[in-house]
């Protein structure tokens, strides 16, 4: 198992390097000039050309790439063109909010999704089943920005219960976590329901019942435990997705996180910041997948034994 993990880790590093190179080249060959964007309307061509030289943007792409890699190894991801601060510092400041949002949203998604999925499965084809599945379908199909604005209007404006935007206290994260987590909750609920229904028809469930286990015991100790395998994989991947930046949610709720930083980087053609945020997102997704694979093999003895 250790060998598998090391092999996967090696693959992850190669993927990361390939993405870094691809990103680096792409950002430099697309039309436009970051210096022109940075200098705005008040700089002449001579100044733009001088600044291009001073920032080293006239050097060959490979030279720039290796300089970037050398810096990155030392933790120096360059300085943001638009915010004039080190990329590492900006991302460090934004990461806390993104982690909080990802954790709150995941907790909401996991608890709500699993509860709805289980209740829908055990009350198959009943009114609660239809209600819970309706709830999950709404979460999956409603755009996040619509959910966000409805929540802001109802709980922020009409009821005045929760802050409309910002990240000043933990209460500020409740609405964004619901807006962001509802979509994941819907997917989880549907997956839990379908896998649980499949597992409940297995022979070993009948055996457990025949042995006199209580319905709750059968559900929790036998059925749910087996039904959760694909769900856990999905949860790990979803969590890594949330951690790499919830662009729309962070923008609508004005949360200074990785997602909002990414938007800023793209709109301002801020190459160092774009590289930093995109590479961070890629790293998190790779690690998330790695974690999901590892978790799966821990939970499923057949995979652990190379089955």
């Amino acid at each position, binding site marked *: 198992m250790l060998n598998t993990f090391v092999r996967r880790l090696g693959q992850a590093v190669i993927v990361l390097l390939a993405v870094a190179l691809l990103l680096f080249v792409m950002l430099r060959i697309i039309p436009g000039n970051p210096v022109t964007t940075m200098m705005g309307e008040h700089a002449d061509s001579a100044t733009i050309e001088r600044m291009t030289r001073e920032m080293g943007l006239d050097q060959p792409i490979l030279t720039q790439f290796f300089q970037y890699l050398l810096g990155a190894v030392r933790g120096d991801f360059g300085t943001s063109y638009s915010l004039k601060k080190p990329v590492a510092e900006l991302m460090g400041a934004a990461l806390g909010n993104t982690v909080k949002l990802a954790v709150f949203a995941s907790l909401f998604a996991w608890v709500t999704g699993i509860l709805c999925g289980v209740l829908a499965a055990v009350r198959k084809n009943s009114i609660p089943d239809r209600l819970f599945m309706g709830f999950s379908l709404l979460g999956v199909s409603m755009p996040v920005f619509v959910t966000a604005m409805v929540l802001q209007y109802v709980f922020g404006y009409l009821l005045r219960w929760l802050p409309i935007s910002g990240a000043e206290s933990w209460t500020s994260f409740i609405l964004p976590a619901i807006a962001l987590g509802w979509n994941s909750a819907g997917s989880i609920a549907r997956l839990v329901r379908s896998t649980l229904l499949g597992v409940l028809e297995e022979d070993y469930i009948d055996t457990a019942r025949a042995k006199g286990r209580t319905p709750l015991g059968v559900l929790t100790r036998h059925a749910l435990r087996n039904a959760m395998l694909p769900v856990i994989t999905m949860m790990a991947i979803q969590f890594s997705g949330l951690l790499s930046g919830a662009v729309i949610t962070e923008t609508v709720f004005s949360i*200074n996180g990785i997602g909002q930083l990414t938007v800023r980087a793209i709109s301002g053609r801020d190459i160092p910041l774009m590289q930093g945020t995109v590479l961070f997102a890629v790293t998190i997704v790779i690690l998330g997948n790695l974690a999901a694979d590892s978790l799966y093999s821990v939970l499923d003895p057949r995979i652990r034994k190379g089955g």
Partner: protein
Amino acid sequence: MKKLISILLVIMLLAAGAAAAEVEEGLLRIAVLYEITTMDVTETSDDYFVPMNVYERLFETRPSPAGAQVEKSLCTDVQISEDGLTYDFTIADGVVFSNGDPLTASDVKFTFERLLKVNKMNTDIPSEVAGSDELTGGTADSLSGFVVKDDTHFTVTLKAPNAGFLAELSSPVMSILDEKSVTAAANFGSDPKDTIGSGPYVIKEWAANDHYILEYNPKWRGEKPTVTKVIVYAIKEAATQSTKFQAGELDLLDLQSLDTMVVEQTYKTQYADRIVEVPQAGQIFLAMNENNEFLKDINVRKAIGMAIDVDGIIAGIYSGNAARENGIIPAGVWAHNDQLEGYSYDPEGAKQLLAQAGYASGQVHFELAMDSNAQTDIQTVYAAIQQMLQEVGINAEIKSYEHSAYLEKRRTEGIDCAIAKWLMDYNDPANIMYTFFGSAENTKQRSLNYPDTEVMARVAAAPAIVNDDARLAEYQALEKKIVREDAAWIPLLEGRHLYCMGDRVQSFTPQWAGFTDFYVTDVVLK
């Protein structure tokens, strides 16, 4: 389940208590779509809120019933030589920065020199001073045209006369810095503790991409304002700003970025008595590249001017919150000519002009380039103009470019035609005239490629006309020549900038200039 619901309710009530907390006395809460990127004016042409409120300038441009006026600020007296080259300044005695250090003539000189030494942007104004080329070129250590006599007196000698020089000095770019704190700063512009000015506020906190806080500077020489603390939130979603304002979480809302329908149906009805509006001090116009095979023909350009129904655009897209412009110098700016005749909407006349040019059967086609960052109203104007041109037989294809690609294409390859916007930085016609028609480089950089070098020479020389009447006449003649005779610029409109005051605000006087930043001292709380 009941227990869970009870816990949730308690949490909600606690949160509600937090949200409904009493607002601190003297606090002003505002939001901006794009937060500041720096507090250093040598690095920005957008982020003026901190410079305007933390620093002071020798002069300030202030709104008045008679139009925007340049008023003395740090400067208490100025004597100008007859040839318009030499300015003897006296600055107020006893002015101190927020750290207690005195503001002297040396700080003013340092400010001029620093803009030139950093040499990134905003160098236009100090470049007018004698010796600026030597300083920028590295052959001199100091600005020879700036002589400090004592702590409160200095002389500035210009390379050429410029009647708009004092207006230029009111630009936020010319905020007077504290030499000592700037020199000692490791990375000036990014740390509030280094941002030391003599203005009414000090910056206390800046959380990048989130918010920043200003507090009253007790060492400021002016009368204590009612606003003693300002929180500026960076909220990129205009709808979120609007919801926060309506929930009482913001005290002043800039309506410019909101959808016109929301402004009309919500703010102009429910908050009608709370709206403050000013002309935008700038204009939206049609820029045409005279290197284009069709647009180089004056009849085609004039036909375009006649094909556009500006009044229809103002009524339909701006719901009347804009005024027609007929020239280059916008209303509210010195030398604006409200007698200048504009293009009449005349599609039949436009067709006749096209026929005279040999394009009677719809041969004229070009690209209408659009910056992807263009605001919704501008995007709608694009669509409307495309339709209007189509009606007279001109095929203008709208092509959207990513912001950076747009700027670069405009600067290097050139774009055919675009709807552009220019907002005034200071109250002098040179700010717009010179930028677009002052030199071959300027006109090329903005894809106009205006060919008349004689007119360009006159535009470049106009600031040197010391006599105000003569300068006014020259600018108005130049404007008439460029717009009416050469049809090199199709004026469209000047928007109105609307703000909505919250319940805690008693009055607000917006800044006259094109940029959205304002003096916080112009907000009076109840």
